[in-house]
């Protein structure tokens, strides 16, 4: 009995291994086994066989692991996990204030411990947090699949670069204007888009993103085309962070009589960015508890039901688009000031896809999830630098694996609980008509 089972298993595994090997050989064989050289080819079939063998062996190992007790219990937990969806809070959860305080303090203290490289990576990560939060409003909350989000990012970045070139704008004024300008672009995009459903919306936004990038590339006289445009470094109350003053002020280090270091500039950017991210996180957190945020989510669930409740779906979508775009615009300013230079290659479709991946991996609609995912997806490529040219390959695999592991995102969505103000509330208002703004 035992033996029969075993030999059955072995047969099954052997079959599986053979099948995987053949498929892997067909798939991997030509590309990795026969390397093109001019109009001829070089024979690397050994490599292809080895690869296919590895794949088949991996498959067998996974099957073996899963057929053991531990493996199958893991598998069960795994499938349970992915089945679950949204839950409602009980209303008794405590808000983790100490943890929050710790995170904020640690975040603010970070520059003191980090060198410029870590700081640079942290700034980039925070920029993506900002982008993720913005796109999360559009995709996660309002359910509008936006594949051209990078357009608003570009608007923010070019606002600083071109604004300083043509209008003499600085970092701070750009920071103030960017949300409005990006919001305006969001509105322009929203009008044609709001008539469309689902994936048609996706392609139109993709098209919009591409149009913005192409115009930035082609409009040489205004944007500098592919050569890009320099963006001015930040100032603090008129103090500059360059070695010698360029914008007609006093350099920071001279004013305070300390030795010059390029790090000061990054400290300033980091601190401002961190505070902005905190503010945006708070605003998004509030929005979700506000009528407007709830309307977005309702619209994502069922547009027709929303209309039957008197919701102006056009304006509601518009507001989501504009607020998302504004956040993207803010991120753009930080990007430009951090880079000191912008050009269209930073705003390709791939960038939009990456931001979308952040939102989806984080768990549509989850703020904490988006923050985590943004950190993971920006820090990961840096961590993977040791893989050299295999970096992108590994990154791609990890993206697939992460999606399969957590298809609903890293963080599970919870809905707030609500309770009446008094226990007798249900008896109140009986004849109190609702004051509706008609």
């Amino acid at each position: 009995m035992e033996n029969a089972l075993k030999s059955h298993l072995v047969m099954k595994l052997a079959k599986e291994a053979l099948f995987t090997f053949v498929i892997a050989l067909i798939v991997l064989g030509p590309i990795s086994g026969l390397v093109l050289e001019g109009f001829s080819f070089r024979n690397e079939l050994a490599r292809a066989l080895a690869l296919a063998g590895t794949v088949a062996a991996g498959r067998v190992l996974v099957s073996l692991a899963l057929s053991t007790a531990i493996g199958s219990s893991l598998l069960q937990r795994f499938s349970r996990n992915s089945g679950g969806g949204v839950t409602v809070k009980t209303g008794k959860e405590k808000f983790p204030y100490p943890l929050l305080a710790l995170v904020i303090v640690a975040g603010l203290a970070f520059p003191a411990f980090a060198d410029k490289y870590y700081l640079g990576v942290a700034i980039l990560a925070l920029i993506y947090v900002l982008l993720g939060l913005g796109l999360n409003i559009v995709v996660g909350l309002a359910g509008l699949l936006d594949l051209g989000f990078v357009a608003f990012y570009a608007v923010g970045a070019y606002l600083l670069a071109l604004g300083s070139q043509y209008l003499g704008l600085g970092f701070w004024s750009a920071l103030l204007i960017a949300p409005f300008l990006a919001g305006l672009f969001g509105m322009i995009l929203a009008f044609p888009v709001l008539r469309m459903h689902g994936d048609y919306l996706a392609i139109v936004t993709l098209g919009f993103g591409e149009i913005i990038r192409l115009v930035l590339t082609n409009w040489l006289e205004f944007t500098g085309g592919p050569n890009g445009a320099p963006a001015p470094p930040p100032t603090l109350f008129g103090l500059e962070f360059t070695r010698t003053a360029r914008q007609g002020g006093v350099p920071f280090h001279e004013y305070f009589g300390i030795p010059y270091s390029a790090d000061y500039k990054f400290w300033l950017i980091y601190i401002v960015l961190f505070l902005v991210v905190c503010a945006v996180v708070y605003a998004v957190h509030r929005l979700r508890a506000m009528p407007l945020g709830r309307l977005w989510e309702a619209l994502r669930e069922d547009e027709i039901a929303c209309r039957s409740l008197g919701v102006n779906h056009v304006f509601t979508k518009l507001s989501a688009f504009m607020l998302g775009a504004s956040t993207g615009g803010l991120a753009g300013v930080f990007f430009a000031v951090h880079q000191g230079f912008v050009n269209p290659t930073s705003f390709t479709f791939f960038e939009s896809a990456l931001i979308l991946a952040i939102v989806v991996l984080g768990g549509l609609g989850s703020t904490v999830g988006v923050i985590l995912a943004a950190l993971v997806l920006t820090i990961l490529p840096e961590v993977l630098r040791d893989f050299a040219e295999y970096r992108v390959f590994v990154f791609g695999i990890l993206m697939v694996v992460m999606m399969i592991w957590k298809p609903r995102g890293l963080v599970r969505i919870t809905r707030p609980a609500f309770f009446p103000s008094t226990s007798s509330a249900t008896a109140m208002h009986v004849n109190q008509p609702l004051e509706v703004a008609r």
Partner: protein
Amino acid sequence: MRDAVLEVENVTMRFGGIVANRNVSFKVKQGDITALIGPNGAGKTTIFNCITGFYRASEGRIVLQSNGRSCNIGDLITKPIVGGSHLVTRAGIARTFQNIRLFKEMSVVENLLIAQHLATTNNLLSGIFKTPRFRRTEVEAIDRAYYWLGQMNLLEDANRLAGQLPYGRQRRLEIARAMCTSPKLICLDEPAAGLNPSETRELSQVIRRLRSDHDLTVLVIEHDMGLVMSIADHIVVLDHGEVISDGTPSEVANDPAVIAAYLGVSEEEVTA
């Protein structure tokens, strides 16, 4: 003599070649429970969609008397830029759907809060900074939601996901949600479908109570003749898109045209 809240005048609705409604006219009186019945495919849901602004009638007009003013539904939904079916709701018509349309992944209370957004939507900043006024309207909205949950006997489900409720409760939640828009006229599309007889009886009490306690006019589509005969003041019968009968329950139930097209049996058998 009570006034008509809603007047449907010569409405015709076409989909390509198909005529779903032809020259439909009827009136819904203030405070009445009016039932719209008819065979499957007679065009009942379609006329509902015209009334609630989801379709624009190909011909004819639909007029709502609300707060002493009369407004034409067709005009509301074709207003440039701001127009749309949401204006119809704001004018005082609420509805439920033949296929339940709840916000399934949101909690029951949230479903009701969304219906009240007109009263609670303050500006962006007041919500972000939690101004006192914002808190007050929010508390009021929650209380009102609980009030309607109590009315619909759904209190224990308040903080569950709407999609997790059993079907019958989802139906009631949909009505509660519609009521949260504080309508003058509520349109119910087959509210008893999928309910068992005892639940149906409960539902008919709810509908009666809505009318008596909340000064509401009800327009209901239903195939459950027991329910219709027991609550309706007035019945309109559609067949092949046309009104074939219009009158009190007993008039309609004895109308040979209605028996032939719809009931198929005499009235006694139905109410038994």
